């Protein structure tokens, strides 16, 4: 994907020619046709200089997702790179930072190709007045799409600097090197900087010249900024408390807003006593049809006002299914027919066959910073700071909700407190903007944990049926996998990576009583849990070791990456040695999977103690191509693994009659320090492969590895997440072979 693709550079050059126009007054180059950027705002922010508009790299065969609700063509601009006349380099991207490390890796990407240390690059993220709409931050897309785009843009800037210097000095471009942000002609010891480039009036014309050669990206072996464990640029502000998260934003005269929530999903407000709010000094009711909230001088007063208001509200409730019957409900409310196993005859004729059903409960992302937004109006325009992965989609959502033009809404996303795939919408921004408009003052809305646990999004519950046949040699002859999921997210990794003869898989959407969204790796977690647990049941039926059984079904050259992580994990974990031990109540399991261009495998050791599953040890091996930042990548992997232990063992939304029963951290038990097992996290670096995103896939194997370890310990397979041991469970006397 990298070196010297002439196609990429030609497109970049064409884009530079088409999209950029010279502003004679400021000598800035800007792209007036782009939505969301006003020239004045932009120039005010970055000042005069050179602006390089970075096009999406369609040569990579990737499609961008537009902000939610936005119509029109796909993403037209992937990033902007501005070179100020003082040499300041500013990269502008629509991507957000929610802890996954995009700020760091995009900074590294620009620095690498510009030939600068990372601390010389400023990164402006997710301010819709400044950055291009390059889609949502989701789907592990920043690494495979935005990083290469930024690299190409930065490499183009470096190429411009070289060409500029060569022309100035009348030397061959091949004799000019870029070192530490300077073009250097070693023979004559002459230097020119990016500031010199930006200050040169002829550069606008230079931009329109055909490129003499392609943009050449820095080869992996020469990386100085990429491939290093560069620290997050604003790390110091994190440890001093100085960083302002969306919930920390303030504005002069700001009020605090809180919504009146329905007591259950689908309930409609039929009556309310507005006078109830008057008991709280300073509190003001805001009611616009079904939108009911209060604003007050403090959060405490706003809470008390809602508490005073709530008992006066009458609601018409609607029937809602509960979590106890959710899996039957999903089966009964599918949006399309579940196709029967087309290989039923093969299964019937197989030497052995197995059929199993797996269930996965609704869980929540529960980011530590709840949904928060500050809205401040200025005339007919509103600026909203909020917690979202989807700045332009939220701009559109807010503008629609308030009857504004999209250009009258500016969304700014400060680095926020965790996303995990659950922040694609902007309801908190709509609430803040409506309350602020009614109040005539800026309003901050910060959801409570109970609100977050009730009214935010959930990872869908699912029911998965798998059936397979085995021949006499213990080889899988046919495979059938159907995931019925409460949301349109069931398709991730629904197909098996194993060589199984004939395979049929189907993701079926069903009605969901809870509002669902993506969640790290979407249904790849559910599908891998079911598939990998089933693989161990098949291995047991075939009388084979789970590792050997998997490897036997990954026997083609294309399986090398998946085999590599699996074999490496098994070796590091001492699979054969641990599996052979017969300690009562202790078992080991493994699992592997591939998703979004990366491969992962895990081994786990569990102890089943007094009806509790304790994960003692886990080894995970992850491979996502060339490693961009090993420190951050390792953190993503251990973060995914540990986060994944929660839904595997305990996390489960409990609800009935449209109300969540465990909407608090005291009842919904997420992983804590004491849940951390002995960990061995290992990265397989593949500098020869394109870098894939890594914030999701490492979560998909820990649950099945644990399930298989429990199967090994107890002799009883696991069929549900969170895992349940049968009440009469006995720990295995001698383990299950």
């Amino acid at each position, binding site marked *: 994907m990298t070196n010297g693709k002439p196609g990429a550079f030609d497109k970049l050059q064409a884009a530079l020619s088409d999209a950029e126009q010279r502003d004679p007054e400021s000598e800035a180059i800007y792209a007036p046709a782009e939505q969301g950027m006003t020239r004045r705002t932009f120039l005010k922010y970055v000042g005069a200089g050179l602006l390089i508009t970075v096009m999406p790299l369609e040569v990579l065969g990737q499609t961008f997702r537009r902000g939610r609700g936005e119509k029109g063509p796909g993403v037209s601009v992937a990033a902007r790179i501005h070179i100020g006349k003082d040499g300041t380099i500013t990269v502008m991207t629509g991507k957000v930072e*929610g*802890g*996954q*490390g995009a700020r760091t890796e995009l900074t590294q990407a620009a620095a690498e190709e510009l030939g600068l240390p990372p601390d010389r690059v400023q990164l402006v993220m997710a301010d819709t007045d400044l950055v291009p709409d390059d889609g949502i931050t989701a789907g592990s897309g920043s690494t495979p799409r935005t990083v290469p785009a930024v690299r190409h843009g930065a490499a183009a800037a470096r190429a411009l600097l070289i060409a500029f210097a060569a022309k100035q000095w009348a030397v061959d471009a091949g004799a000019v090197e870029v070192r530490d942000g300077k073009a250097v002609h070693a023979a004559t010891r002459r230097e020119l900087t990016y500031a010199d480039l930006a200050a040169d009036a002829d550069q606008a014309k230079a931009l329109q010249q055909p490129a003499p050669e392609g943009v050449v990206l820095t080869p992996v072996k020469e990386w100085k900024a990429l491939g290093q464990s560069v*620290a*997050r640029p604003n*790390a*110091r*502000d*994190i*440890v*001093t*408390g*100085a*960083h*302002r*998260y969306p*919930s*920390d934003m*303030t504005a002069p005269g700001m009020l*605090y807003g809180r919504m009146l929530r329905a007591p259950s999903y689908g309930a409609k407000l039929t009556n309310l006593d507005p006078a109830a709010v008057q008991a709280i000094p300073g509190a003001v009711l805001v009611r616009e049809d079904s939108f009911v909230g209060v604003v007050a001088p*403090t*959060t*405490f007063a706003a809470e008390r006002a809602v508490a005073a208001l709530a008992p006066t509200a009458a609601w018409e409730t609607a029937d809602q299914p509960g979590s106890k019957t959710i899996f039957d409900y999903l089966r009964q409310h599918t949006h399309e027919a579940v196709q029967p196993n087309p290989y039923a005859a093969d299964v019937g004729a197989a030497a052995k066959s197995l059929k199993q059903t797996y269930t996965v409960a609704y869980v929540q*992302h*529960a*980011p*530590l*910073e*709840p949904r928060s937004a500050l809205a401040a109006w200025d005339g007919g325009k509103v600026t909203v700071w909020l917690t979202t992965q989807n700045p332009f989609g939220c701009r559109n959502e807010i503008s629609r909700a308030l009857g504004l033009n999209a250009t009258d809404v500016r969304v700014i996303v400060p*680095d*926020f*407190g*965790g996303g*995990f795939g659950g922040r694609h919408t902007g309801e908190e921004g709509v609430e803040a903007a409506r309350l602020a408009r009614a109040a005539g003052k800026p309003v901050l809305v*910060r959801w*409570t*944990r*109970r609100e977050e646990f009730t009214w935010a999004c959930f990872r869908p519950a699912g029911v998965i049926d798998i059936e397979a046949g085995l021949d006499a040699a213990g080889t899988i002859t046919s495979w059938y996998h159907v995931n019925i999921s409460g949301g349109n997210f069931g398709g991730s990794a629904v197909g098996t990576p194993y060589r199984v003869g004939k395979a049929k898989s189907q993701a079926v959407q069903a009605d969901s009583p809870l509002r669902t969204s993506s969640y790290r790796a979407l249904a790849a977690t559910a599908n891998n849990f079911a598939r990998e647990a089933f693989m161990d049941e098949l291995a047991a039926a075939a009388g084979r070791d789970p590792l050997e059984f998997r490897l036997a079904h990954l026997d083609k050259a294309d399986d090398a990456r998946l085999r590599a992580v699996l074999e490496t994990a098994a070796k590091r974990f001492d699979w054969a040695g641990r599996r052979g031990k017969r300690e009562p109540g202790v078992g080991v399991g493994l699992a592997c999977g591939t998703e979004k261009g990366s491969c992962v495998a895990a081994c786990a050791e569990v102890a089943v103690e007094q009806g509790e599953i304790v994960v003692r040890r886990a080894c995970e091996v992850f491979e996502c191509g060339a490693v961009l930042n090993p*420190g951050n990548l390792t*953190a*993503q992997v*251990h*973060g*995914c*693994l*540990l*986060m994944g232990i929660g839904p595997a063992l305990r996390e489960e939304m409990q609800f009935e009659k449209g109300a969540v029963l465990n909407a*608090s*951290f*005291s009842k919904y038990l*997420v*992983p*804590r*320090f*004491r849940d*951390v097992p002995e*960990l061995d996290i290992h990265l397989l670096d593949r500098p020869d492969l394109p870098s894939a995103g890594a914030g999701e896939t490492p979560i998909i194997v820990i649950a099945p590895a644990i399930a298989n370890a429990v199967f090994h310990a107890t002799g009883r397979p696991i069929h549900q997440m969170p895992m349940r041991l049968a009440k009469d469970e006995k720990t295995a006397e001698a383990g299950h072979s």
Partner: protein
Amino acid sequence: MDATINFTVNGRQRTVTVDPQRPLLDVLREELQLTGTKYGCGEGRCGACTVLVDGKRVRSCITPAASVAGKEVLTIEGLAPSKPPSATEGAALHPVQAAFLAERAFQCGYCTPGMIMTTVALLQETPHPTDEQILTAVNGNLCRCCDYPRILKAVHRAAEAGG
């Protein structure tokens, strides 16, 4: 009925007139603009709001403002200046902050102030904690990014540095 409460925050005498039941967290954030202390759960179960009151850690989200009258409150902002005094960036950090920075013991960082304050309290009481003492101290603090391994390293590092 509002009450006038005098207390010390980060070494500075403060007077606020607030509802005595209002959480200390809200008073710090909304009256004193000290937003480093975070809201996470409102029930004292996540530790994001941890501050020290007379040297002991408390969950400020469930601590009524009136209860800190006459006491000394220390927040993340009071550990070290948020801007370094010189070009030697990092020199002004509290040893626990420096340890968290050195270990990069955060992803989104929203839990970090609470983690740091919890660690400061632990090391004041127990300068050389055992692993079990560390787990007991920090287990009430949640990190949803689950960066627990690096946080534990940072706590150990701070302990070794005499944090």
